[in-house]
C-alpha cells in the first residue's frame, strides 16, 4: 500500500527530475543514435565521395557517350526526317557539311571518327580525311560532292549508325560487351561469329576463379584441419607458413612466381631434376612443347598461391570452435573414423568453407596483375581487358561497360556473402 501511494496519480514510472521513464529512455537512446551517427558519418561521407560516386560516374559512362551527339547536332536533326531505307536527302548532307566544318575547326573530328569506328571498322581514317576535305565544299549540291570524297557516305549503314548515336545515351557499349549489336533497323542481334569475344572472356574469368577457389579448398582444408587440431605451440609455428605469404605483397609474390617460372628458371630446373616435368605435359603446353611460363597452369598456380590463405583462415577459425567431443561421440557410437569425419565433422565446418570460398571467388574475379604477368594472352581476365581498354585503346565506354559486368557479378556474390556469412563477422589474420 505504501508503495502505491508513493507513485503519482497516473501510475507512470518517473526519473528523479519527474520526466516519465519512457520519455527519458527514448531521449537517451536518441542521443546515443545521434552520437553513433556523428561517428560513422565522416567515413561514410568520405567513402561515398571518394569511392562510390566515382564508380557511379563510371557506370553512367557505360551508357553515355555524347561524342557524336554533341558534334553533329544539325546532321542528327536533319536525320530525324529520314526513312532509313534510301540514302538521306540533300538537307542531311548539307547539315553534315556544316557540322563537319565546325568539328574540323574545334578539332573534334577525330572523336567522331573514333566513336563511329567502334561500329564500322575502318571508318576513322575516312572521317578524318573527310574533315580535311570538307572545307573546300561551299556550293550545293553537297550530296554527290560528299559521296565523291569517300564512298562510305553513300552507304545507308553509315547514316543509320550516325542516327543511332544521335542520343548521348547509347546501349552500344553494354550490348557489345554481351557480344550483341543493334542491326540497321534498330533491333538487337548477336554479333557475327568472329566478333564474339566478351562472353568468352566472362566465362574464362568465372572459370579461372572457380578453379582457383576449388584448388584453394582442396589444398587449404587439410592444412586448416591440422592447424586447428595441433597443440598450440606446433600450430603457431605452422601458422607462420600461412601468414607470411598472406602479409607479403601480391606484386612481390607474382614477381617471385614470374622469376621462378621463366623458361630456364628455378622451377623448370626443379621439375627436370625431380622428374615431374610430366606435370607440364598434362597441364602447360604451348605449341605442343611443355612450357610453364605464360600458361593457364602457371596463372592458376600463382593465383592459388596468393588466395590460399584467404580460403584457409576462415575455415581454420571455424574449426577452432568445433569441440573434439563430437568426433569422440561419433566413434564411440560405432562410426568408422572416415565415416565420422565426413558425417559429423565436415558438416560443422561448412560455414567456414562458405566464408573462405566465397571470399576467394569474389577476390579472384578481379585479378589483373597476376594473369597479366604470369599468364599468356588467352589467360587474361575481365580486369585485364578493362585495363587495356583504358590504357591501350583509350575506349572508356568499353572499359565502363566491362566494369558494369564485373561489378554486377561481384555485387551478387557480395550480397550472398553478407547473407550467408555476415560482413560484420569478417576477420583478418
Amino acid at each position, binding site marked *: 500500500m505504501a508503495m502505491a501511494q508513493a507513485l503519482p496519480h497516473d501510475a507512470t514510472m518517473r526519473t528523479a527530475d519527474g520526466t516519465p521513464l519512457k520519455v527519458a529512455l527514448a531521449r537517451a537512446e536518441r542521443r546515443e*543514435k545521434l552520437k*553513433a*551517427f556523428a*561517428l*560513422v558519418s565522416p*567515413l*561514410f561521407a*568520405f*567513402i561515398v565521395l*571518394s*569511392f562510390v560516386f*566515382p*564508380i*557511379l*560516374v*563510371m557506370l553512367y*559512362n557505360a551508357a553515355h557517350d555524347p561524342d557524336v551527339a554533341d558534334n553533329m547536332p544539325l546532321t542528327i536533326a536533319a536525320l530525324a526526317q529520314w526513312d532509313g531505307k534510301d540514302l538521306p536527302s540533300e538537307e542531311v548532307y548539307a547539315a553534315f557539311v556544316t557540322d563537319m566544318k565546325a568539328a574540323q575547326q574545334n578539332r573534334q573530328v577525330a572523336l567522331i571518327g573514333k566513336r563511329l569506328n567502334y561500329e564500322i571498322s575502318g571508318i576513322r581514317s575516312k572521317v578524318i580525311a573527310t574533315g580535311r576535305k570538307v572545307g573546300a565544299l561551299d556550293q550545293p549540291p553537297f550530296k554527290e560532292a560528299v559521296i565523291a570524297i569517300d564512298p562510305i557516305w553513300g552507304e545507308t549503314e553509315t547514316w543509320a549508325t550516325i542516327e543511332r548515336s544521335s542520343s548521348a545515351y547509347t546501349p552500344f557499349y553494354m550490348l557489345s560487351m554481351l557480344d550483341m549489336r543493334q542491326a540497321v533497323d534498330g533491333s538487337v542481334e548477336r554479333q557475327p561469329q568472329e566478333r564474339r569475344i566478351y562472353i568468352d572472356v566472362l566465362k574464362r574469368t568465372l572459370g579461372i576463379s572457380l578453379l582457383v577457389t576449388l584448388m584453394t579448398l582442396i589444398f587449404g582444408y*587439410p*592444412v586448416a584441419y*591440422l592447424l586447428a587440431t595441433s597443440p598450440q605451440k606446433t600450430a603457431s609455428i605452422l601458422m607462420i*607458413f600461412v*601468414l*607470411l605469404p598472406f*602479409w*607479403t*605483397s601480391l606484386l*612481390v*609474390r607474382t*614477381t*617471385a*612466381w614470374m*622469376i*621462378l617460372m621463366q623458361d*630456364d628458371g*628455378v622451377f623448370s*630446373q626443379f621439375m627436370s631434376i625431380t622428374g615431374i616435368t610430366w606435370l607440364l605435359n598434362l597441364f602447360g603446353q604451348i605449341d605442343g612443347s611443355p612450357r610453364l611460363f605464360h600458361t593457364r597452369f602457371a596463372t592458376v598456380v600463382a593465383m592459388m*598461391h596468393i588466395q*590460399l590463405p584467404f580460403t584457409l583462415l576462415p575455415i581454420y577459425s571455424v574449426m577452432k570452435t568445433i569441440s573434439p567431443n563430437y568426433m569422440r561421440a561419433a566413434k564411440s557410437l560405432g562410426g568408422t*573414423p572416415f565415416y565420422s569425419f565426413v558425417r559429423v565433422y565436415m558438416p560443422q565446418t561448412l560455414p567456414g568453407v562458405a566464408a573462405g570460398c566465397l571470399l576467394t571467388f569474389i*577476390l579472384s*574475379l*578481379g585479378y*589483373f*596483375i597476376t594473369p597479366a*604477368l604470369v599468364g599468356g594472352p588467352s589467360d587474361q581476365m575481365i580486369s585485364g581487358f*578493362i585495363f587495356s581498354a*583504358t*590504357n591501350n585503346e583509350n575506349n572508356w565506354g568499353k572499359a*565502363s561497360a566491362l*566494369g558494369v559486368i*564485373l561489378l554486377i557479378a*561481384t555485387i551478387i556474390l557480395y550480397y550472398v556473402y*553478407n547473407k550467408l556469412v*555476415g*560482413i*560484420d563477422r*569478417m*576477420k*583478418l*589474420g
Partner: protein
Amino acid sequence: MAVPSYYTRGETVAYYALRAFVGLVLLFLISPIIAIMPLSFNSETFFSYPMPGYSLRWYDDFFLNPRWSGALKVSFIVALATTALATFLGTLAALGLARVNFYGKSSVMAVLISPMIVPVIISAVGMFKFYALLGVAGTRLGIILAHTALATPFVVITVTATLSSFDKTLMRAGASCGAAPHTVFFKVVMPLILPGMISGALFAFVTSFDEVIVVLFLASPEDRTLPLQMFSGIREMISPTITAAATVLVLISTALLVTVELLRRRSERLRGVRA
C-alpha cells in the same frame, strides 16, 4: 609425433598422409618467397641456380639509384599519410557502429567494406575520371585519398572485431567514477581497442604500400611508388634489382606480421581470451 596406440592401420596411414600433404602445401606456400631471396645476391643478371658468385650490387642499385630510392620514399610518404587518415576515420566509424543498433546498419557496413570487395581496376577507372574532374588526378593527394578509401575497410574490420568482445559496462563504470566522456575514452576504451587499431593501421599501411593498380592510373611521373616502379620494371625487362626490392619488401612484411601477432597475443591475454 607418435601415433596413439589405439589407432587402426587406416588411421595411422591417414595420420601420416595428412602430415605429408600439409607439409607439401606449406612448402608450396613458402617456397617462392624463400627461393627469390638468394637470387638477389647473385653477381650475374640471370635468375637461376647455381649462382656463379655473390654480390650486393642489386641492393646498391636499390638503395642508391634515385629511381628506386625515390620510389621507396614516395611509397613511405603515401602509405604513412594513408595510414593516419584511414586509422582515424575507420576507428571513429567502428566506434559508432558498435554503439547502437539502428535501421540499415548492415547496409552502412556493406558500403564501408565495399572498397575491399570491389575489384581494384573498377575503383581505379572510376577514380581516374572523377579525380581528374576534381583536379586531384596526377597528384600525391589523389593517391592518398584513393588509398585511404581502399584501406579503411581493414581498420573498420579489425577495430570492430576488438569492440565485439569489449565490455560496455567498463565505460559506465568509468563514468560513474566521475570521469568525463573523453577521459573514459582515452583511459578506458582506447587501451583496450589499441591492439585492434594498430593491426588495422598496419593493414592500412600494407594496403597502400603494396597497391599498384590505382597508382598506375593516378600517379604522375614524379609520384612513382615502389610497386609501380617494380611493375613497370617487370613489364619492360626484368632487372635483377627487382629481386632486391622483393627481398626488402618481404622483410618489411615479416616485421609487420610479427608485430600484429604479438599484439593479438597481448590483447588475448589482456581480455583473458584463449584462442
